[in-house]
């Protein structure tokens, strides 16, 4: 019997009550969908996706701010995933501006080095991405380069989800790559079962088994099922570099209200690289007016197939919500694997 089948059988034995676990990582969702892991789970055990896709949780107001920078004639550099995310007046892709896809922030700097025009990097991402931007800002940079900081931190959002309680969660599968950088000591503040899991199907099933065991025992701790890549302290060098450049701030997430301390802004010494200050750009709150339920999907209280627009009006070619845009968005992932099943 394969290891996966064995773990799946144990899960069926152990799931003697309703258990809902949330993961917060686009790569976990991709692996869960790819390997059909939900079909191996007992009926009483569910795994839902939380706000684990950094592109998806970037609110419309920040996309609008990037569009304002297009209007100012700036060259915009960012990750491909962000191009089609709808703001309130179109997307970066449809803006008609000089918008360039880059692998990372260092490539945006190379663009700035080759032009006299202003280059702004739209800097989205969690604690995996923020240190790469921080390291770049600590190196020698041309004066026509700046960033629009749209970064988010995972633990404050988890705190919000737990306090809010609408998703009725029994535990969390922590974001593996974020933990690679940050470690998991920050998560020890949360009195719920948690596990750090890897990305192969057995890893994910093992993580679920560890969570289910904690629920059954009535315990709450962090089990590390991915010790080869993740240690409690994380990557100290990356954390120090990130802390030197960024400081936490209160920001809104798409689908969430303002979450205290959940964003990152540049520290005062880095004003010259702060596009918000350089171009006097504000992040405005935008009310949602469509039938899109990405907000509920991101909070773990709905799944993509609950949405009336899913795979009908909203497809990867004609996305209405951000979760259909990014490779890590739940809707895009579900669309990809449903299509494959036909």
């Amino acid at each position, binding site marked *: 019997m394969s290891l996966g089948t064995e773990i799946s059988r144990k899960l069926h034995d152990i799931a003697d009550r309703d258990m809902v676990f949330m993961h917060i990582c686009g790569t976990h969702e991709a692996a869960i969908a*790819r390997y059909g892991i939900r079909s191996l789970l007992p009926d009483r055990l569910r795994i839902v996706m939380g706000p684990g896709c950094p592109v998806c949780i970037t609110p419309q107001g920040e996309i609008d701010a990037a569009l304002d920078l297009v209007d100012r004639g700036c060259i915009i550099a960012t990750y491909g995933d962000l191009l089609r995310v709808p703001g309130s007046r179109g997307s970066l892709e449809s803006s008609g501006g000089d918008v360039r896809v880059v*692998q990372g922030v260092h490539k945006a700097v190379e663009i700035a080095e080759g032009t006299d025009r202003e280059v702004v990097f739209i800097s989205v991402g969690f604690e995996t991405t923020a240190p790469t931007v921080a390291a770049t800002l600590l190196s020698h940079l041309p004066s026509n380069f700046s960033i629009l900081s749209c970064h988010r931190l995972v633990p404050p959002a988890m705190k919000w989800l737990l306090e809010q309680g609408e998703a009725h969660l029994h535990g969390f599968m922590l974001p593996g*790559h974020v933990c690679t950088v940050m470690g998991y000591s920050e998560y020890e503040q949360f009195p719920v079962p948690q596990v750090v899991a890897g990305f192969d199907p057995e890893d994910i099933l093992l993580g679920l088994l560890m969570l289910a065991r904690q629920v059954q025992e009535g315990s709450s701790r962090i089990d590390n099922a991915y010790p*080869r890549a993740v240690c409690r302290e994380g990557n100290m060098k990356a954390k120090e570099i990130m802390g030197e450049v960024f400081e936490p701030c209160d920001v809104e997430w798409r689908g969430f209200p303002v979450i205290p301390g959940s964003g990152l802004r540049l520290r005062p010494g880095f004003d010259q690289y702060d596009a918000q200050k350089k171009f006097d750009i504000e992040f405005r709150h935008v009310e949602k007016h469509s039938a899109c339920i990405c907000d509920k999907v991101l909070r773990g209280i709905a799944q993509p197939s609950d949405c009336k627009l899913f795979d009908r009006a909203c497809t990867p070619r004609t996305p209405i919500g951000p979760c259909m845009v990014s490779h890590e968005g739940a809707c895009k992932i579900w669309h990809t694997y449903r299509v494959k099943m036909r």
Partner: protein
Amino acid sequence: MCIAVPAEVIEKKEGNIAVVDYGDLKQEVRVDLVDVDIGEFVLVHVGFAIQKLSREEGLETREIFRQVYAAMEE
């Protein structure tokens, strides 16, 4: 964009740059965030090595990622 891929460091260059091997692709990445030597495995995210991995983990994980990405590209 929040995806990270394991790769082996095969060359180190000036200015916090290393050449890594993903299996069928070699690429220059930034190594500002890790202290690595040739032959070590790193996890690469948006063109930066964000953490070191054990060799065994690197090889195993690389295969899984290859399968997941192949499916997502189809």
